[in-house]
């Protein structure tokens, strides 16, 4: 076992991990941060997306020791300081961007990474950015709408389908 230290949602944390311990295992089992989900465990679905040093990554496809010294942000770090939902989270609720909610942590983390890079994405840019995030329920339409709304854009132009 090796000691690993990083900052998670602004809090310095450390723990003992094996070489093969994935970042998502360290977050969920080591730190009890079970908001990050494992959907496929094969790098396909994006349910496990977190931010590492500001970049969206699949935490099921990165070892905990590769995040040594990094700044990690998970879905638990997305709410506002007073506990209210962030703009993106609120938009998912307002626009019905989730049904079962399993994909939602990864969707919100990907959306946050997109908007940090590109504050006013087009519908096509949003759909392209979400290529690695699979949703079994919503048909994506309301997720795209929520992200448009979170970026302060008019969503009435997106045709209802």
């Amino acid at each position: 076992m090796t000691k690993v230290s990083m900052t998670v949602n602004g809090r310095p944390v450390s723990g003992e991990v094996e070489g093969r311990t994935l970042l998502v295992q360290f977050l969920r089992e080591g730190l009890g941060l079970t908001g990050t989900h494992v959907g496929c465990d094969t790098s396909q679905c994006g349910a496990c997306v977190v931010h590492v040093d500001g970049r969206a990554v699949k935490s099921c496809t990165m070892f905990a020791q590769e995040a040594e010294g990094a700044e990690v942000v998970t879905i638990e770090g997305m709410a506002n300081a007073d506990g209210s939902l962030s703009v993106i989270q609120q938009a998912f609720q307002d626009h019905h961007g989730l049904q079962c909610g399993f994909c939602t942590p990864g969707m919100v983390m990907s959306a946050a990474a997109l908007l940090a890079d590109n504050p006013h994405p087009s519908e096509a840019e949003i759909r392209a950015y979400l290529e690695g995030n699979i949703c079994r329920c919503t048909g994506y339409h309301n997720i795209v709408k929520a992200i448009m709304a979170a970026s302060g854009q008019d969503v009435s132009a997106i045709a209802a389908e």
Partner: protein
Amino acid sequence: MYAFDFDRPATLDAALAALQDEDAQALGGGQTLIPTLKQRLAQPSKLVSLTAIPELSGVRADDGALTIGAATTHAAVAEQAAGSYPALACLAAQIGDPAVRNRGTIGGSLANNDPSACYPAAALASGATIVTNARQIAADDYFQGMFATALDEGEIITEVRFPLPEKAAYMKFEQPASRFALVGVFVAKYPDGVRVAVTGASEEGVFRWTEAEAALSADFSPEAIAGLSVPSDDMIGDLHGTPDYRAHLVGVMTARAVRDAV
């Protein structure tokens, strides 16, 4: 996954020393190797991560060439090569999805040489040089069939040097489930001729379409290759496309690449 030791050295020398151990293996972005380990298809004694080594990361243009460190991520190439080699940046920006591009590296992609991967087409069409800890390998000698390369045991790619073309483009027909290339064609026009490399299509992995190269070197236009076709004998056939379909796509994607070359 079977258990293994994990090493994340800060220098190339330390990485090479760590790779001396029996069954030690290099780890790039892990986007191919970690899924492989999860399936227990590999059993390294130790993984040596190359991503904390500053000399292996970065993009620099000089002397008519673009040199990319082996541990440079696809996302970094998409951003940093956009000015000097737009077709290559555009290829990097189409690999997988954003999270894959934030971890996956050019060295890992070329070492793996997946028959449907994108970078092998760029390296072969550009006549790139694969630089390792031991030697320099011309792209024409480097790719040796599906998942096979000229790399020796324990040899690692340190950087890749791409001569800058006058014009180039990559056209990828995406396999929608995996987002790899069903067929991808990279066309690059140099003062001494045009090179065309095809990925995703052949059982032998990435290959040069020399007939199209000759036609395009004489006349760089989509019409120049209108009458040409590649034989479908060695093409991959699977549920996503028959060998004939792939052979047809090679012509279509080559013409589109010529049309859009910048």
